[in-house]
């Protein structure tokens, strides 16, 4: 049942990305391009997505998930190097291609070979990240 729900969630997520135009890299780059022909669509998508999720978070108080033991614990609120460096690198890649992980998967069916190349490179980066992080940790300690 949890697996079926996961499939349903992925389907709804993908449909939302397609309908909102977020699989169109021109709209994403258009939103980031504040000095060009600025496209505000992404702000509407973010706003629209945050509303049901904010309600859902309120609903979690004092309850349990339908098919799980507990809600995810509040994450540690540590603002460190990994968060800042990682978000900066991610933003650079996002700006360059106009794709982030969700839309990259959602557009695989119609983005052509470039879409598969992006997802391949993204997965390579994800696989490399833990060892890169360990190496960076070592250097930081050494300094």
């Amino acid at each position: 049942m949890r697996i079926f729900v996961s499939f349903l969630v992925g389907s709804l997520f993908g449909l939302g990305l397609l309908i909102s135009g977020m699989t169109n890299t021109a709209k994403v780059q258009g939103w980031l391009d504040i000095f060009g022909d600025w496209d505000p669509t992404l702000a509407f998508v973010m706003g629209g997505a945050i509303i049901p999720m904010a309600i859902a978070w309120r609903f979690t108080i004092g309850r349990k998930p339908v098919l799980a033991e507990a809600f995810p614990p509040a994450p540690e609120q540590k603002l460190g190097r990994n968060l800042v460096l990682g978000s900066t690198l991610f933003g650079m890649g996002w700006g360059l291609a106009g794709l982030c992980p969700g839309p990259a998967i959602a557009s695989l069916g119609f983005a052509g070979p470039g879409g598969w190349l992006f997802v391949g490179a993204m997965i390579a980066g994800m696989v490399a990240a833990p060892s890169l992080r360990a190496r960076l940790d070592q250097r930081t300690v050494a300094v």
Partner: protein
Amino acid sequence: MPIDWIMGLVGGVLIGTAAAIFLLVNGRIMGASGIIGGLVDGSGRSDWQERAALIAGLFIIPGLVALAMGGSETNLTGNWAIITVAGLLVGVGTRFANGCTSGHGVCGISRLSLRGIVATAFYIGAGGLTVVLFKHVLGVI
């Protein structure tokens, strides 16, 4: 164009509803980079079926709908060097930051998570500067 904004809002509500169902039913955070990353680096082995099922839905349904509509424009650059570098940056960056637009942006900001807000400020800032530099200064995208 206002019609694009309305479609954006409708699509956004669908995305948020998907995230809400994942949270309230499965008790999980709908973060695309975390779900994919845990599957490919082995850290999410215990619940790989849920991860794979979510990714399958995310891939299959928009693909089918786009096919039914006669295709959907992605306007993805044809420059393979840029695509490769961008993919690597997105992969490494989202795993370092432990989240992307869906995890930090949608799920984090909606619970007023400081980490989510800071991450979103940095990736939007870096994305904006990158577009300005590579589009208006260098003219390569």
